[in-house]
């Protein structure tokens, strides 16, 4: 993307934007356009050189600065923004329709009014070719957890959670300061400051067994930063250990469900993949459960652990009373 392909749309939008907001502080303009104030000043200086043919004093865009605020005196005929491109309209309308079809997300009626107004202004009716459904499958007990969490988030109260951590197969109680609720790739999460871990953590809702909304206010540290979701919630972590697995056709779903790397097709639906893991016991649980549909090529300690547990389980099962 060239620099001007971002700058020109901003320049074309700035004049009508300022026209609608006389005397607006430059700081606010920069924030709305998501550019540094220095860049904004350069943009305004450039606009000052633009205008109508003739390009005399009365033809150029006129901006007046007072303190740290700016006002448009003459707009040179650029009083309205350029209409939305197809991609811009699609991105907004598809997202709005997704929100309106999801109960509890927002006031569905307000979303539909927004859709209608934007469609009317954009003057585009063709289907976008993209549909997003945000609804997820949720057990009844998770719905109760959600209600309690939302109450805590809304009232900004600390929460006591009973949480299941699959990597350690462990249930712990912890007090967290909630930040927001997320819905990403089919799962709901609470993002919160975990006081025990001294960091921001994501808690998947279907792993929360109990929620208690505390009387004390939510007090995350002021420097806390929300998780950047743009690369997914669980980007590859180089500190994790690596397993190399050969997946039989019946286990290929693993490479869709868990992040894997370096997929090598071995023919007839089999594949070799590299998968990262933190905890050996978790990885052993996954591999053991897959039975004959997976072969561990690396590490040896994982293969050994699977053999040890399978042997022990089969031996123990022989002691079961006959039914």
């Amino acid at each position: 993307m060239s620099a001007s392909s971002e700058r020109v749309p901003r320049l074309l939008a700035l004049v009508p934007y300022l026209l609608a907001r006389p005397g607006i502080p430059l700081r606010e303009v920069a924030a709305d356009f998501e550019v540094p104030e220095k860049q904004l000043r350069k943009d305004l200086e450039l606009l000052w050189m633009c205008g109508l043919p003739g390009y005399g004093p009365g033809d150029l865009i006129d901006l007046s600065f007072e303190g740290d605020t700016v006002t448009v005196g003459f707009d040179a005929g650029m009083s309205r923004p350029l209409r939305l491109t197809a991609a811009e309209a699609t991105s907004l309308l598809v997202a709005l329709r997704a929100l309106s079809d999801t109960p509890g997300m927002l006031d569905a009626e307000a979303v539909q009014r927004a859709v209608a107004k934007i469609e009317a202004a954009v003057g585009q009716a063709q289907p976008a070719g993209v549909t997003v459904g945000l609804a997820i499958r949720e057990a009844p007990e998770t719905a109760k957890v959600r209600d309690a969490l939302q109450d805590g988030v809304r009232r900004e109260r600390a929460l006591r959670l009973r949480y299941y951590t699959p990597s350690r197969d462990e249930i712990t109680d912890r007090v967290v300061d909630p930040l927001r609720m997320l819905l990403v790739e089919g799962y709901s999460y609470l993002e919160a400051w975990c006081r025990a871990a001294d960091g921001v953590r994501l808690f998947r809702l279907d792993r929360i067994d109990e929620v208690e909304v505390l009387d004390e206010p939510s007090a995350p540290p002021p420097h806390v930063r929300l998780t950047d979701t743009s690369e997914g919630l669980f980007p590859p972590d180089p500190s994790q250990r690596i397993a190399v697995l050969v997946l039989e056709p019946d286990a290929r779903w693993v490479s869709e469900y868990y992040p894997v790397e370096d997929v090598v097709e071995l023919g007839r639906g089999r594949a070799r993949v590299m998968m990262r893991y933190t905890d050996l016991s978790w990885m052993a649980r996954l591999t053991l459960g897959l039975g004959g549909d997976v072969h561990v090529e690396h590490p040896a300690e994982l293969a050994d652990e699977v053999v040890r547990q399978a042997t022990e389980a089969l031996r123990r099962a022989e002691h079961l009373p006959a039914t």
Partner: protein
Amino acid sequence: MSTPRAERLVNLVLCLLSTRQFLSAERIRGIVPGYADALSDEAFYRMFERDKTELRDLGVPLETGRTGSFETTDGYRIARRDYELGDIDLEPDEAAAVALAARLWDSPQFTGAAHGALIKLRAAGVDVDQDVRAAVEPKVRTSEPAFPSLLAAVQAGQVVEFDYRRLPATDVATRTIEPWGVVARRGRWYLVGHDRDRGATRCFRLSRVVGEVRTVGKPGVVDRPVDVDLLSFVATTQNDPQPSSPTRLWVAKGRAQGLRRRADVVGEQLLDGELGDLVEIELRFPDSAARWIAGFGPDVLVLEPEVLAKSVRERLLGALRSQRGAEVGS
């Protein structure tokens, strides 16, 4: 000093917006500051072509035509009614919805576009507050490699061909599809369309598309039926699991927490010298129950039903066979 390109482009837009007559390239060259920098005719035309392309890419509706029959070349102008965004006025709750919608995407195709849309709405005088709080913040990614080409084919109405792997995995097969739409459901992306070989509507998971998507034939040939709800169609292809009959398990004391949180303890039993709890559990996903239980190894044993005990045993035997077998070659 030469005129910056951005300044030249803004002046070109202002100039063409202000004229009702079509202006020839030569006239524009004489009027708009910056084009005088071009030292030759060839340099000017190159510059002007590049500028026109850029403006069209930005969505500026450049009109070409001739004002009178005496003109010998096409000229240019911008019709204000085609250029300007229509009037729009959003109530605070509508603006909040728009703000939340604009940050839904974590997507190279849509994140920038949503931001561009927001800037234009703000320029139209709408106040859209970035910091609006939502009960839930949904995020949608479009990271599947096949996404951009399938979306482009849907929007262009062009037939596509791709290699596809069904699950349980088999060899890939080439499918030829008239694409109707890409659909996200429960965090997964699907393509819905008419499968030419099977002569029926089909749904394909994007993560199972292997390699490149190829377009077939010309754009504009796909007839998308207007009355098909793509999201509902995807839903009908996926069955929700049926709950199973009650299951009884032996669980070693203090072990298998992930299973215990879904189970009821109904007694205790000593087994092979190890004390464990007898639990009853309603299995939500019978298909994957044997895998789940086998994963706990010696910590969980199936008492009943017999069919589940048997498939857990098969998995454990399979694990032994697989890990002790020869190395797998490629």
